[in-house]
């Protein structure tokens, strides 16, 4: 149906245009059929119906008693459910705060006063968090390592070992991990071994010579690929 026909039918329905005009402007059966349908539907809306009184008499006996005086205004959530919700929010908030604070306290990153307060409260709850006095100042530890590095009279491997011992003292004290010291002579042996291995691969002529691993016995490789004396 086009818009022009819709508008003309509206005008006809409103009594602003006679049917003849409508038929003239829109020849063909469509307009008349639409008008017939409109009249049919209007007639359906006016058909006789039974007396409502009989139906009401039957219905009124079935109507339940209303709860007199109840007028629903304001929030529709029952009061006890609102209380439960408020409590739930409060408990969840407290749990979240404790988790966050406890995590920070365990990581020793809280200010001293806060760290002590959290450690005291956690202690009552059977949890162990360090007090501020238990936590060494990591800045001064770094300074200590730096001072040793500058002032130690030792050289080479021994100097490195001395610095390493000071540096790892933090882990020994607080993480209960004791690194095994590496003797300087063993370290030197490993260093020369590596150098020899590199040399061997450089002199090799076989297809795998360039890919020889540093831990492989280089002398053996060199020996196997070297021309006989």
């Amino acid at each position, binding site marked *: *149906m086009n*818009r022009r*026909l*819709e508008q003309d*039918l*509206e005008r*006809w*329905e*409103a*009594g602003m245009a006679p049917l003849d005009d409508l038929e003239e402007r829109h020849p063909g059966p*469509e307009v008349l*059929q*639409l008008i*017939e*349908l*409109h*009249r*049919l*539907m*209007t*007639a*359906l*809306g*006016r*058909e*006789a*119906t*039974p007396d*409502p*009184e009989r*139906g*009401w008499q*039957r*219905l*009124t006996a*079935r*109507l*339940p*008693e*209303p*709860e*007199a*005086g*109840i*007028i*629903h205004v304001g929030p529709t959530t029952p009061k006890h459910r609102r209380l439960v919700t408020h409590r739930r929010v409060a408990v969840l908030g407290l749990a979240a705060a404790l988790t966050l604070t406890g995590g920070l306290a365990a990581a020793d990153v809280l200010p001293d006063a806060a760290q002590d307060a959290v450690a005291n409260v956690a202690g009552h709850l059977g949890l162990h968090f360090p007090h501020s006095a238990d936590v060494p100042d990591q800045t001064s530890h770094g300074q200590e390592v730096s001072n040793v590095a500058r002032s130690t009279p030792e050289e080479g491997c021994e100097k490195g070992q001395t610095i390493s011992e000071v540096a790892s003292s933090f882990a020994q004290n607080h993480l209960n991990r004791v690194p095994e010291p590496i003797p300087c002579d063993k370290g030197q042996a490993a260093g020369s071994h590596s150098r020899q291995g590199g040399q061997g691969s450089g002199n090799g002529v076989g297809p795998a010579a360039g890919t020889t691993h540093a831990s492989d016995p280089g002398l053996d490789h060199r020996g196997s690929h070297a021309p006989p004396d």
Partner: protein
Amino acid sequence: MIRELRELIASSRTANISASNSDIQAGTYGGEEERLDQVPQLVERAKRGDREAFGELYRLHHARIFRMARLHLGDLGDGAEDAVAETFLRAWAALPRYRFTGAPFVAWLFGIARHVVLDEVARGRRVMPREELPERTRGWEVDDRLTLAQALERLPAAQRRVVELKYLAGMKNAEVASALGKSKGAINAMQWRALGTLREILEER
């Protein structure tokens, strides 16, 4: 099909086809207009549990809900009357939650009635149209209504609501516009578009 429907109009007991178009548009029902003005006050009283006020609402809206139920369920037996009773029972229970939105009260009742009718149809209480045309008796009218009801069900939902509220609930186009949240012009267009679609569906049969 249209010729048959025209015959139905001619044989209708109460149809007044010669009524002027403006009278049809106004949707007046013999002095009902004045009584319908009391609906908002009656609704407020009924919400407070006033059975007398609810009874008045029943009497005012019974015919419209009955016609809608009869169109979909047929009028053999008490199917339509039972659907009306069920509609008002549900309305009584839901009244405390009713909020006036500017749309006529009958639009709210029609929403309930539609659910009731669909429940009844699902339960198989609908009287199915006959295969062949019966003689011109009361049954012929029933079949024709049911044919029309089936065609209505095939309309797009928005168009079907316009047809139901305008022709069965007897609402003015401005009231239908208010109930559906559209402009009066949009309702005018939808009404004729719906009738155009309905005509095509009926011609297919």
